[in-house]
């Protein structure tokens, strides 16, 4: 039984990586978008669309990596569409985001009907646990390459926002559109590019769902990761590296229920499964205060103005 309780911890760690990876990509995408001063609630739709596209391309081409790329491109198109619509006068990005969310999921379900049954090639995983002879540890350390890619993206994105001309421009646009215009920066173009790139990352997050874990394509594939990304980014204080830690935390929380079940704790199963959502709610309440504003909020965000 001693190994069993260790097993919970190991399973939670493994789950943090396995379940947290799509959170990581979506929240990085949302982080970049919000840094440019827009909120994209449509990332939920982007995620589902990415999942469908990735699965379909992988099935037809036989290459899951091509699927990942196409999922990203599909996300990019949706992101660009969102920010293009938002660049018109008097268009509210929240409302457009909700419309895009419904549009993305609807389109994915419509186009994805034929792909519910067939089985597509799966993304390979890397065995980092081969040195160990504990099966639980081996299972937990089966890591998808996309997770490693995600870490690199988080680090590079953080570095770019701080140290490149492009990153500085994105931040200026997100902090003050007026100041950006006074500097002669093309505000709408920078936002469209940032949102499109954010959509690309979210699309990849979607392909991870359908091509690795849980590895299928169905209408119930996403459980709101795209929406929770908005909360995650707040928790991460708009820092890409923060997105990495927060995603792992959320992944771990989501893995708690199944892990406990594996050692025979079945009571309160649904409660445990709801932990990520409860955490999201609790976090929103804790971080919202009438007496203080958040540190690091891009000032152009409509919800904070």
């Amino acid at each position, binding site marked *: 039984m001693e190994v069993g309780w260790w097993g919970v911890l190991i399973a939670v760690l493994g789950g943090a990586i396995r379940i947290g990876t799509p959170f990581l990509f979506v929240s990085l995408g949302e982080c970049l978008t919000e840094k440019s001063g827009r909120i994209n609630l449509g990332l939920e739709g982007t995620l589902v669309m990415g999942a469908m596209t990735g699965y379909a391309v992988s099935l037809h081409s036989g290459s899951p990596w091509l699927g990942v790329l196409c999922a990203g491109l599909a996300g990019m198109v949706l992101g660009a569409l969102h920010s293009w619509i938002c660049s018109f006068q008097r268009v509210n990005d929240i409302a457009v985001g909700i419309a895009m969310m419904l549009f993305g999921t609807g389109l994915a379900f419509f186009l994805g009907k034929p792909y519910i049954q067939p089985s597509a090639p799966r993304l390979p995983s890397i065995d980092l646990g081969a040195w160990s002879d504990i099966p639980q540890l081996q299972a937990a350390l089966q890591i998808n390459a996309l997770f490693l890619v995600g870490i690199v993206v988080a680090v590079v994105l953080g570095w770019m926002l701080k*140290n*490149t001309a*492009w990153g*500085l421009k994105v931040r200026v646009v997100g902090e003050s559109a*007026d100041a950006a215009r*006074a500097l*002669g920066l093309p505000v709408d173009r920078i936002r469209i590019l940032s949102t499109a790139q954010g959509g690309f990352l979210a699309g990849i997050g979607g392909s991870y769902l359908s091509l690795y874990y849980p590895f299928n394509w169905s209408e119930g594939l996403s459980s709101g990761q795209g929406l929770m990304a908005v909360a995650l980014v707040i928790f991460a204080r708009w820092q890409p590296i923060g997105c990495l830690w927060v995603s792992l935390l959320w992944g771990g929380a989501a893995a708690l229920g199944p892990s406990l079940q594996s050692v025979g704790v079945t009571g309160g199963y649904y409660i445990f499964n709801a932990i990520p959502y409860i955490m999201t709610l609790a976090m929103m309440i804790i971080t919202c205060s009438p007496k203080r504003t958040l540190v690091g909020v891009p000032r152009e965000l409509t919800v904070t103005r």
Partner: protein
Amino acid sequence: MTDGAPPDLQALGITKRFGPLVALKDVNFHLRSGQFHALLGENGAGKSTLVKCIMGYYHPDEGKIVLDQQAVTIHSPRDAQTFGIGMVYQQFTLIPNMTVLENLVISKAKLDPVINWQQEEHQLTQFMDTMPFKVSLSTRVSSLAAGEKQKVEILKQLALRNRILILDEPTSVLTPQEADEVLGHLRAMTLAKQVSVLIITHKLREVAAFADEVTVLRKGQFVGSGNVSGLNVSQMAEMMVGSEVTAKPKQRTVLSKKVPKLVLQDIRVKDDIGVEVVRGLHLTIHEGEIVGVAGVSGNGQRELVEILSGQRQTTSGTIHVQDQPFQPTREQIMRHKIFCLPEEPLQNTCVGRMTVAENLAFRNFDREPHAVGGWLISRPALRRSAFGLIERYNIKPPYPDTPIQSLSGGNIQRAVLARELSAEVEILIIANPCFGLDFLAMEEIRLQIVAARNRGTAVLLVSEDLDEILELSDRTVVMFNGQLVYETTSSGADLAIIGRHMTGHTT
């Protein structure tokens, strides 16, 4: 800084129309190399339009811009920069969440794809050493005082190697000390022929102290120009307004007994990021008294006003109004008749898209005669009251059905003052009431405030304009670092002592 004198700038016969409105008509203007030139005029006189024509925001319908005897066409503000012309705007264009260094780097015309922060910092430090004033590069802009921000704005233009600086009311957000410091440095730079300065301002005192020459515009037309040394302040004011005006001494009635109306005890308040900015403030205001709170902005004045208007909560301390504890609820505000004119009234106490009539009725829309039976709003009654206030307070344009955000700053200020003074007022809280107003509007509003005092209202006046405080208030207190550190009667107040307390230099 490139060598040689700054270019000579002339605007000849500039005419600019917006539809049927002629904003500028055949205006001439000459900024000589190394000159400190002031552009004077009332609100709407066309100063900003003229400057925007020079900067390339607008393209004049007639006339031309001449730089060093050569006619040039300036297409955009970016374009103006290639001619060495830079502008410092009335509102700050700095990015608050970024450091001074980041702000200066981002304003460069060409950014390296990967920014070498060390090298940038090194270069800007060297540049800063050649400047008369310095600002720490690693500081976040949001934590700078207004005067420091204005310095960064100017440094930004100088770092871009601009030789002609245009400043649009640069001192409107500064204290007199800060203003004198910034203008003094600019003056020194013009004397050294490093830059030419064109400054738009209402403040005649500053013109008299720092400028070489003035050009005066009135209603879009050139009225005159001349050397400052040959003009006195009232002559300049006359050119601006068209008739002799001076600040009239306000009639004051003296009340026999002092009844305390508003008592603040040990008030503590935190700001938006949780820092305590009001730390144990005690203040009593009596019937028929104006108490002026002087201080450099950012010493807790904004938060002090916000707790009295109900926009912020105290962490500790008590507020008593006429010996009763006060909570700024709608019910208690009405009962104690405590009203408020905060700074930036459009953002702070108006709903911009609602009409003037609706905004004027915010305090009493739910009472007779505006609300029949207390629940059904009567639009005719709202409009009738609005017409009355519009006439009494001279709000322009006189239409109750226009959205209030389409009014000019002075008229919004008048409208809010009309609303807050429309009923009987026991206590009036006012913050920077004359910010950005022209001479006549300022006089009107100040007269209204003193009139309210003479009727027995207790007035708390928070202002960054020390002259205004000394002119209006009976007592002046100085706020520094969240506390009141000095108190004096306004008659016979010593400016130097007040200034020292404002900056915390008390020995």
